[in-house]
């Protein structure tokens, strides 16, 4: 630490192998407090695996993950979450039989450590906090709908709303606009920008929509075949010959 404030997140030389396939190989990542960092790379570059390693869904073979200077390598997902890291998922991953309100409410209840309260009436608890989150993401008027019946775009927004329920310091978003229409993507971008300014959130995300990546991120980390090629500002990443090779010269197709 040496006096200075520790980084929000630092990933050092992280490795993960699946049955001999090196999904993540020596990945590096630095996220400062208040920063928006994007991870990009061709399909199969290991972006989602990297996120799963950070949030504890997967355990790395070797390497180090530091959150605010604290080693969280290999911690279980619920413990990582309690440290202050929330995430959303690439494929919609919500509580589809519960209402929109309840989806966010259980995250808030978990954050408030009320998950073992067995006698109090849940409908009277964490209501203000939940309503505030729904309002901030624009789902307030759909609060009583069953979440499984929402449109795909709304479900992706609900994904983010659930992640906000834990009042995260670091929000990790795995392709927040995947499958969205251009209009919905624009709205989501506005929403994320507002969350950053209003809540002072630090965001780490990966995304295939290059327009969104280059306009939203302060820094971009480029991955290829599990390795970190570079992490730098959008302007420098754009100029970097290795990135151009990965996206244009390689066999992988780029979606943007």
């Amino acid at each position: 630490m040496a006096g200075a404030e520790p980084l929000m997140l630092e990933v050092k030389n992280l490795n993960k192998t699946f049955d001999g396939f090196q999904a993540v190989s020596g990945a590096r990542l630095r996220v400062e407090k208040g920063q928006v960092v994007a991870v990009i790379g061709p399909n199969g570059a290991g972006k989602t695996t990297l996120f799963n390693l950070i949030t504890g869904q997967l355990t790395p073979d070797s390497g180090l993950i530091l959150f605010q200077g604290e080693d969280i390598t290999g911690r279980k997902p619920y413990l990582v979450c309690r440290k202050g890291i929330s995430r959303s998922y690439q494929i919609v991953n919500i509580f589809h039989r519960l209402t929109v309100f309840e989806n966010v409410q259980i995250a808030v209840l978990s954050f408030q450590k009320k998950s073992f309260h067995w006698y109090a009436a849940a409908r009277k608890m964490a209501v203000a906090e939940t309503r505030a989150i729904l309002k901030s993401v624009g789902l307030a008027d759909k609060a009583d709908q069953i979440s499984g019946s929402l449109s795909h775009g709304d479900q992706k927004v609900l994904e983010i709303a659930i992640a906000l329920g834990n009042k995260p310091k670091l929000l990790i978003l795995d392709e927040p606009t995947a499958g969205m229409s251009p209009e919905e993507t624009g709205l989501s971008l506005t929403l994320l920008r507002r969350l950053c300014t209003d809540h002072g959130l630090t965001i780490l995300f990966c995304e295939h929509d290059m327009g969104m990546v280059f306009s939203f991120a302060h820094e971009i980390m480029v991955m290829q075949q599990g390795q970190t090629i570079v992490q730098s500002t959008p302007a420098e990443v754009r100029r970097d010959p290795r990135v151009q090779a990965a996206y244009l010269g390689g066999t992988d197709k780029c979606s943007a």
Partner: protein
Amino acid sequence: MVDRRYRLAVILSGLVLFFLAAPSFLSRYYLYLIGLILITGLLATSLNMVLGFGGMYQFHHSVFYGVGAYSFALVSMKSGLPPAVGYAAAPVMAALASLIIGLITIRLSKLYFGMLQLSLGSLVWAIVYRWYSFTGGDDGIHGINIPEVIDSTRGVYYFTLVVTIICMYLMFRMVNSPFGRIFQGIRDNPERTEAIGVNVKSHQLVGQIIAGTFAGIAGALFVTVEGSVFPDLMFWTLSLELIIMCLLGGWYVFFGPMLGAAIIVVLRTFVGIYTEYWTLVLGIVLMLLIYFLPQGILGYFQRRPLSEEH
């Protein structure tokens, strides 16, 4: 939503009034039958706490029912302690059994959890079935004394009614509490629930113990009504029947399993008079149910569980 709550309150108080007044116009046999329905319904509801609201494949729930029944029977027959101790022993021993079986099975998920529970439960059944000197083996134990205060048709009936209402009320509160909400979150999506900071396994274990405890109480009630215990109480076919009751009544609705239990007990009692193949009727009912009411009877009327509204 307010009027739905209101409607539920009206239906429930009507039912409770009927049950309270029943001894003044129903014969002894029908009181026995109502008692049996209440106990079976309580048992099915306790199963549904983990099955319908927790998404856990609780394949051998009747073991905890049996453990409760035998605990009560053995304490009152062999220990010489007052019957109150027997009534306390039933839920405690059932909770202990669910803790032990739960600790072993909880690490497995879904179907494997259910299969391991089925085999461990069958092991308990086999011990009870063979241990003649202690459990009476396949003969069971008969002529079990119950406390004098309730030792009459009416006494037993009211005791069963009151205990069932208290247990149902407690479980209803649980389903609608933060714990119940999060439990339903685990049912819908365990991975995501863990990602929002919930220790899923410990919640599942607690859920198991809750379900087992109420099953144990139902077991003690059964002994109170029947005056005997036998190994069939923890045989796997009863567990299967309980799952059918939950399905039949609607397992996303709190009162679904109670209704399912009532239907099956009534079917068995009245169709059973005419033919020993009453399960054939049950089979046909089930087939119709799966095709036309996949959410169960109350699930069809309710569209969505009461417990999940706010």
